[in-house]
């Protein structure tokens, strides 16, 4: 086989040209809090437990939690600037959540969540990876996620919404032949006099399709989910959200 040494004119490695955001910059008032933050920023799920426990010996649980969250905010920045990739973000959120759990035990009560979001993958569809990412990112941002899983019958979605009264509902579908369930859900909800932001995403799902039925808001990327959830929690209705995200 003959191989070239010079590939110019065939392809350009644009990925190498891109400027990187500045590296991690974490600031804390003292050493132990610094360690807590670093555990989150580094997604160090192995040591987070011991470090947080150590911190709790001297610090108030709420302060430790805000350190954990501070670390997570730094991670979000690094991801946004392209320094971090998705896995770093998810590992950090794993670490943060583990840390928070320990603090909650110490406090004897669970931290109250920013709001409730129900997620599911369409009936007949087992492509749930996008949904799993959405779950992780929502949890990382302090939302209570009710995960209905994949291949969820329309009925189950409706009754879950009735039961939990979430601020937002999400659906993932990767097949055009299963996404049709979203429209049914929208109709059923309307029929029951319910209206809430229903964010739909997934490879096969197009903006064209989702904005074609009531409540539908198209989600292009899982990373949008937290911001969407906060809009929903802060009372934006689906029309306002569609206006914001789909136009």
């Amino acid at each position, binding site marked *: 086989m*003959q191989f*070239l040494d*010079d*590939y110019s*004119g*065939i*392809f*350009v*490695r*644009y990925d190498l*040209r*891109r400027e990187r955001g500045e590296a991690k910059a974490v600031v804390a008032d003292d050493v132990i809090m610094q360690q807590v933050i670093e555990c989150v920023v580094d997604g160090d799920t192995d040591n987070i437990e011991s470090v947080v426990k150590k911190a709790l010996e001297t610090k108030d649980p709420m302060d430790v939690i805000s350190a954990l969250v501070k670390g997570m905010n730094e991670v979000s920045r690094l991801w946004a600037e392209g320094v971090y990739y998705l896995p770093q973000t998810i590992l950090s959120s794993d670490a943060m959540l583990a840390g928070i759990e320990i603090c909650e035990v110490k406090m004897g009560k669970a931290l109250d969540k920013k709001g409730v979001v129900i997620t599911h993958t369409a009936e007949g569809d087992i492509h749930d990876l996008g949904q799993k990412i959405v779950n992780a990112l929502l949890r990382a941002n302090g939302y209570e996620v009710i995960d209905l899983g994949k291949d969820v019958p329309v009925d189950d979605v409706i009754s879950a919404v009735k039961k939990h009264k979430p601020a937002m509902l999400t659906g993932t579908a990767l097949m055009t032949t299963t996404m049709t369930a979203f429209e049914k859900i929208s109709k059923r909800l309307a029929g029951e006099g319910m209206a809430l932001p229903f964010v739909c995403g997934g*490879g*096969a799902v*197009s903006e*064209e399709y989702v904005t074609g039925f009531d409540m539908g808001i198209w989600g292009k990327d899982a990373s949008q989910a937290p911001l969407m959830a906060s809009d929903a929690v802060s009372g934006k209705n689906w029309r306002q959200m569609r206006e914001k995200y789909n136009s």
Partner: protein
Amino acid sequence: MAKYTSMAYQSAEEMVFGTAKFPVKYGRDFEVGAGFVYPELVPHPRPGSEETKKSLVREYEKMVNDVLERCVQLGFPGIQVELEHVYQMTRNPDWGGEIAATTKRLMEDYHRKYGLKSAIRATIADYRKPDEENMRSSSALGNMLATFEASAAGGADNLSIESMGGKEISDYAIVRQDIRGVLFGIGVLGSRDVEFLWKQIVEIAARHGATPGGETDCAQANVAMFMAGGYLDKSVPHTFAALCRAIAAGRTLVAYEQGARGPTKDCGYEDPIIKSIAGVPISMEGKTCACAHADMLGNLVAAVCDLWSNEAVEYHDMFGGTTAAVFTEILGYDVALMNTAIKMGKEKDLRDIMINSDKYRDTHGFILSPDNAYEIGKAIVTNADSYYTRSRAAAIKAAELMMSDQRLALSEFEKNTLDTMYKTLLGLPDKEEDFIGECIPVYQKLVKGFKPSNYGL
């Protein structure tokens, strides 16, 4: 009027994709025919988006962005986007102008951010109606010229058109297998209209520092090829369609005699002949324009191209992204293959593989195979007394080539058609004035609305 009397290339063997005798440089670090092949992506707006200027501009903004983003995602060095005007964009010059400006803005962003090379072709819609209006003074013509201005001002690098001259006659003749009518409609009337139009386009381009790009006989030769269709179609004989193509070369060539510099228009299947004569870089389309129409020379037609196009794809979602992104990807890899061959010094191997794929699949591939295209080119430059003589010579040469190569299998019906057409061609007058004199009364009687004055006759 000055005509080509010699070939740009010494031989067909010299011709290959990626290199033209006279490269053209424009746009953002974009040079065509200078050693590499680039993709030319042609997106079409969705029905409905043409209703308002705002919605149409927005549609183009989305489409062009998808194209440029996919290029960067996959590492394609550069791309040309054709703004092939739908009626509304030419009917309203400012629409065409603003869409060109929007496209340019996006391209500049990607060039600044990533160094992506790019260029814009604006193809104005020729919506003059030869059989209903005065083609040299109608309001349609006024709008077309105004739109060329607006597009160039807006940022179009390459000005092109698919012109209509002679269409009223060729439409009548093609469906009646009337080779004389085709020769008159394409070879004579078409050529005269191209001359009339391109004088003005070249002048406009010069004024705006844009490049006068390409012409194509889509209006006539593509109708014939298109109706000839595939092995199962029975609309127009394939040998007849091939003759129409040879004749079209004489017509399209006029644009370059008037100062057009290419890259030529993608749907001009006659361009391999044009390149052999004029040496301008050519844009071609084949297998990857299946989204727009089928042809029977999907690989061969790339053999000597400088740009590689999809002709047109309507904007819709597919599993892999929008059609604009999807066809950018396919074209991009097609040209990556050609460019790799060039870098490896194997470009002529790949060229010959492309040629052998289709040379004997059908008559169109046969006459456009570089060796035959070159022969037809020679017939054109050695019969340069008039538009008529050279078009007729091209047709006669094409016929002789088809009749003399045993490897080109033809059905009885196709053979008979070819023989009849060949005899008819030989029987026609030698002088243009005699031919014109013979045709005018005949077609005035047969074709309602045909006005010789539209062609300065």
